[in-house]
């Protein structure tokens, strides 16, 4: 009986070098993974170290920054008289985001219900790509759409009640942008609900509406909430739309028909004005960015946690 060729030749490769190169490759890959941690560290280090430069200046105290109702970093003629109170920017962001959520959450959720509960495969095969296309459109295009279509039609409907640049038109555009995201995340959550629950509801005599809204939606609640939170944080961080359509005047009010500069809008405006590195104005960028980062980071973290913690398992 002849031995296999490998055993006849007895020409085995050494495993030591193989083990070594394996180790080497694994550590290279681990290094790749560590870069992502480094990026987070970099962001946090940058934000903290640079905003220390802002708060250590004589012009500003932390208390004024948090409670001040005037933000004139770019408006005032003299640099010394600039006021740095974050509230106008926060209120601008809040107005735009509220309008956006009023659009994106109900529409996204209902579209998701339709897609996961009612739509035939044929309709799904049309609707899903449409939503994917909307999700893939660059944000600057939505900004242009807001000033080209949304803002003029709002003015036309209200008979001139809206300013040319206003929080509502930017909010509507941001809402359209967030809609596919809310929709696809909620739909994923609803499709994960096992069919036995639906069948049980129908068996007890529920109508399709009752099955969808009173059984499937509560069962997928954690996924839907996390979708809402992720969309919320996306809307807060959205930049190009508000830079184009929301205006450049920081106003502290709750009126969505007026101009509103958001935090991201301010950052863009600041970059366009090309202030020198090292001035208080330049450092105010980082103070605004810290606020923005903190809010979105908390939202994302909360969304992730809700999704993990409260995920109902139907095994």
């Amino acid at each position, binding site marked *: 009986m002849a031995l296999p060729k490998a055993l006849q030749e007895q020409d085995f490769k050494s495993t030591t070098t193989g083990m070594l190169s394996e180790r080497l490759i694994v550590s290279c890959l681990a290094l790749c993974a560590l870069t992502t941690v480094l990026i987070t560290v970099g*962001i946090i280090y940058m934000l903290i170290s640079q905003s220390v430069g802002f708060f250590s200046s004589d012009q500003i105290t932390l208390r004024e920054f948090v409670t001040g109702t005037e933000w004139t970093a770019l408006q005032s003629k003299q640099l010394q008289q600039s006021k740095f109170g974050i509230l106008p920017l926060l209120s601008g962001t809040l107005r735009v985001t509220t309008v956006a959520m009023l659009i994106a959450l109900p529409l996204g959720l209902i579209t998701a219900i339709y897609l996961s509960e009612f739509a035939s495969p044929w309709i799904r095969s049309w609707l899903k790509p449409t939503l994917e296309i909307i999700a893939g*459109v660059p944000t600057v295009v939505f900004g242009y759409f807001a000033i080209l279509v949304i803002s003029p039609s709002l003015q036309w409907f209200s008979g001139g009640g809206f300013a040319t640049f206003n929080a509502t038109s930017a909010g509507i555009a941001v809402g359209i942008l967030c809609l596919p995201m809310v929709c696809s995340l909620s739909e994923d959550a609803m499709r994960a609900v096992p069919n036995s629950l639906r069948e049980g509801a129908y068996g007890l005599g529920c109508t399709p509406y009752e099955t969808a809204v009173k059984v499937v939606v509560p069962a997928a609640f954690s996924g839907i909430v996390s979708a809402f939170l992720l969309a919320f944080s996306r809307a807060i961080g959205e930049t190009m739309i508000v830079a184009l359509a929301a205006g450049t005047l920081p106003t502290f009010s709750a009126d969505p028909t007026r101009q509103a500069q958001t935090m991201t809008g301010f950052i863009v405006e600041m970059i366009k004005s090309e202030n020198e590195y090292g001035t208080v104005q330049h450092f105010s960028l980082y103070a605004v960015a810290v606020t923005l980062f903190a809010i979105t980071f908390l939202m994302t973290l909360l969304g992730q946690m809700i999704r993990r913690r409260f995920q109902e398992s139907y095994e």
Partner: protein
Amino acid sequence: MNKLPVALTRHDANKIARYTKRRKQFSAAFYALCVAIALLSVAILVVLLMSIGIEGQSRLSTDLLTRSHSELQPQRSGMWPAIVGSLLVCGTCGLLALPLGIGTAIFLEEFKPRNRWLLRLRSFVQLNVSNLAGVPSIVYGLLGLTMFVYMFNLFGQIQVNQSSGWELMGAKHLYQVLTLEPDHAVFIPQTNRNQNQITIDRPLDGLDQDWNPIAIDVWAPGTPQPKDPEVRRRTVAAGTTGGTVTDKAWYYFRLPLDRSFLAGGLTLGLVILPIIIIASQEALRSVPSSLREASLGLGATNWQTVRDVTFPAAVPGIMTGAILAMGRAIGEAAPILMVLGATISKESGPRHLMDNAVTMPVLIFNWAGRQQQEFKQLSAAAIIVLLVTLLILNSVAILIRHKIQQSQP
């Protein structure tokens, strides 16, 4: 005990029928609402594309594709530098993000450690990736601005139009001196970087305009000028002063990166890195574990399994995710705006690694924010070009996926 349940004893057929009818009507109305709202998103997309098409169709011409932005002649402005800029920035971005992202995904999915602490580290990295995906792109822009453009001011205060920091390679510092022949200059290599001017008073070795070494003659005023143009081209009047110029080869490299397309590309790479990681992870996860187990059972090591079995099987998914991420990168304006600034007056694409660039979204942003009607129309036309680019990119993704799926049994 033969007492019936309450529901059966107290039945009121009419009431129940009415109630049921109302419930059914409500359900039907809800269904109609669902259809209407689902159609709304289609309507939005149609209105979006139509309005931009109508606004921009008059400006779609070859001028748009071949010319550069012109402040004074909006009717003849184009976006050629922006197209080149976008491609180069996205190329850089892909070169950074693809290897890094795929490597991270492979590490997270295929090398599951047994050690408890390493497991914890792994889940921390995983959480970190999903958090990075939620960071607004403008914060990445700020990171790029601080880390790549200014490098935390480690190299001294940055000043506009003045070279500071370390020039590592590709830069030649020369003095430019005008010769007797009009429109001709000779160049003399700079020896002392702090000396900004040179005064010619004796013959020197230098370079002509095509960088050939020549000997520079000096003509003393008062003596007859040489007549031969060849000689005149390398003869300088005594006492002529020359300023410095810097000749930058295409591989010119310096630290900090300043407002260069390289810095822009790296920043964009950071933006799309989490997207690529998440997409690649999903692609790797969808490879059936029986393949992996078979390979490991045949004695392959972990890495051999990844290299020869898992990764090839996951390539279509990874490619799709990568191309979608590149699409996101092409359309992303905020980080580029932060890093490269808002200037759009460039006449060509980047000439060397450290050159500034314009990208399509930044150009669109700038044009859309202007008052003149011409620029608004140009902006719509540029949007059409951008959307067509995205469309091509996505069709390539679909094609690649089909090709690879067909070639695999």
